[in-house]
């Protein structure tokens, strides 16, 4: 760590990062220190503008890559013109300019800092004096002239100094005051400024800056003899002699390889490059692992280690978790009470006991005590589950207690496969956010699966797996000869059953859910990632939103 700090102090800053700093200090920190980059449409629109300009001015377009260690800056000037013997840097912006009270066009503060920084960089490197810089705003087609004076140069020096200090700091700055800045900020979906404001002020009504749904598809390859390869910007899937299926890479979010399909190295490279998750599931339906291509974001993991080595923090988070799952389990049984008058006394007894147990969670003072409660809650819940199965369902699909490794009946085979899928999705979310899956707060680091993933799974077991299994059984969607393979006392899903389950599970993930705290709706698919981001906020001074996904 010493080393990174030392080089961070001497390394020059990009002029663009100075622009970010002047826009919002948190933005600067997220990009420069946490190495989070996301691009929204305006980022790409800006790049396109530059590509277009470059073509228009083919002859006199020159890009200058400049660096000055003395000044502490480096950057590329958009365009440079000579006017009356003076060099003038130009900057092109796709949007509108700022209008002052008299409606006169002005530069936005961050743009002004940026063009002044280019001017100072030119002055230092070339030993000339730059009298002004110009910014052209394309949306309203005006050029704003920014004079370079001593005050401007001082502003640049001060900003560099402040930015350097912030870069060396371990504290992530709070969200910016001006909420309008966030609306146009490309990092909003990972910064979650509205959620941070809500954490600080429960009265705040957050806007949803987080996408409602994933834009990319999840691809399950269940055919054992499939070959996944790269062809240009596509993935191609060949199964036996059928014509290859083409998948445009920009439309793919995850590749899930069930059993032993082949994937070529170039295909893996393409996935890694495009941030496509690649996951492996065994023929028995167990989660095997993922390709982990997390780059950077070291700071976030250092903060995770610091937070999760604190026993009080772990206990608090674990309490939230056990409460969240237990409450959802109880709610599910309560729902059943409405339709099952015959089982009413039994269910009432179970849910009352669960309620009493849930009340004790906040008084526990150790993880061991909490595990005891959780075990007890689970036992009660599973003893209530059989009452949720309708009378019409044949005996073979009934539930008589949880067993696994290997599952001994059809119901358990479905649950186990579902939990495998869920673990895969939780892992995908953890890797996307850049946290360390092997470092959790509740589960012991001794099972094969990464503890943080097991921790987070608790939140989603009831809504994404248990409910899917129960509903599909009650709807008689399973054919017990075709969907299952039985081998003495082991039961697992057949190819048919596997495909059917994936279908049901993915459809469930696509359903909308209104978040009880933030009050906006999104799909379960999206909630997985949101929950990981909210967890991370728990130790970044924006606590209070994690573990609230309780069934209504």
């Amino acid at each position: 760590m010493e080393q990174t700090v030392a080089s961070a102090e001497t390394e020059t800053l990009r002029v663009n990062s100075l622009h970010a700093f002047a826009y919002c200090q948190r933005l600067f920190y997220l990009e420069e220190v946490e190495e989070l980059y996301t691009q929204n449409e305006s980022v790409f629109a800006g790049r396109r503008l530059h590509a277009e300009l470059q073509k228009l001015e083919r002859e006199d377009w020159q890009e200058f890559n400049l660096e000055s260690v003395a000044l502490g800056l480096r950057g590329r000037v958009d365009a440079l013109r000579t006017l009356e013997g003076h060099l003038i840097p130009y900057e092109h912006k796709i949007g509108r300019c700022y209008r002052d009270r008299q409606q006169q066009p002005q530069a936005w503060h961050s743009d002004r800092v940026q063009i002044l920084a280019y001017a100072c960089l030119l002055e230092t490197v070339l030993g000339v004096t730059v009298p002004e810089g110009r910014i052209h705003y394309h949306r309203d087609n005006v050029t704003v002239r920014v004079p370079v004076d001593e005050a401007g140069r001082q502003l640049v020096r001060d900003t560099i100094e402040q930015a350097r200090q912030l870069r060396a700091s371990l504290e992530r700055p709070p969200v910016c005051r001006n909420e309008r800045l966030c609306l146009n900020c490309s990092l909003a979906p990972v910064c979650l400024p509205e959620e941070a404001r809500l954490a600080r002020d429960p009265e705040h009504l957050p806007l949803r800056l987080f996408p409602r749904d994933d834009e990319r598809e999840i691809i399950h390859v269940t055919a054992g003899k499939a070959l996944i390869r790269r062809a240009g910007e596509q993935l191609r899937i060949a199964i036996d002699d059928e014509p290859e299926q083409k998948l445009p890479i920009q439309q793919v979010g995850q590749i899930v390889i069930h059993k032993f399909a082949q994937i070529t190295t170039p295909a893996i490279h393409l996935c890694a490059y495009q941030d496509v998750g690649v996951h492996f599931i065994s023929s028995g339906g167990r989660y095997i692992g993922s390709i982990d291509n997390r780059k950077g974001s070291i700071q976030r993991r250092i903060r995770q280690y610091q937070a999760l080595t604190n026993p009080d923090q772990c206990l608090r988070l674990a309490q939230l978790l056990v409460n969240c799952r237990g409450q959802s389990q109880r709610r599910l049984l309560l729902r059943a009470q409405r339709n099952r008058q015959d089982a009413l006394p039994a269910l009432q007894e179970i849910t009352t006991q669960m309620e009493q147990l849930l009340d004790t969670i906040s008084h526990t003072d150790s993880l061991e005590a909490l595990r005891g409660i959780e075990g007890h809650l689970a036992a009660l819940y599973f003893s209530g589950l059989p009452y949720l199965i309708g009378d019409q369902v044949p005996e073979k699909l009934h539930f008589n207690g949880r067993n696994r490794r290997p599952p001994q009946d059809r119901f358990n085979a479905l649950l186990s496969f579902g939990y495998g899928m869920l673990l895969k999705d939780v892992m995908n979310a953890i890797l996307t956010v850049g946290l360390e899956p092997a470092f959790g707060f509740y589960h012991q680091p001794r099972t094969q699966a990464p503890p943080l993933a097991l921790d987070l799974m608790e939140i989603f077991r009831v809504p994404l797996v248990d409910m899917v299994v129960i509903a599909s059984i009650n709807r008689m969607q399973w054919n017990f000869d075709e969907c299952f393979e039985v081998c003495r006392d082991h039961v697992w899903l057949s190819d048919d059953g596997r495909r059917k389950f994936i279908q049901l599970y993915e459809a469930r993930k696509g359903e909308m859910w209104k978040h009880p705290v933030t009050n906006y709706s999104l799909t379960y698919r999206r909630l997985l990632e949101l929950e990981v981001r909210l967890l991370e906020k728990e130790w970044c001074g924006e606590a209070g939103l994690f573990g609230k996904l309780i069934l209504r």
Partner: protein
Amino acid sequence: MGESKNWYLICYDIRDPKRWRQVYKQLEGYGERLQFSIFRCRLTPREREKLRWQLEKVLTEEDDLLIVGLCNQCIERVRACNRSGAWPVSEQNFKIF
């Protein structure tokens, strides 16, 4: 579901075979080819802008590019006027092979 995605018809006329291939390859990463130089892509605003930027880096003055956004009603009309299967619509966010 995924309400921020829209269909686009992307047509191009490119004078130089090398650039044509480059553009063709880029577009294959976003959607599916319908005819010789016509693609259909279902894109979010972010993807649309990313694609426009990537194409702009390849295209020159003499090339033509037409991006047509289609609303749901347009899609229905496209389907009504064509043979069945000309514009299949699946709104699912997953595929199983």
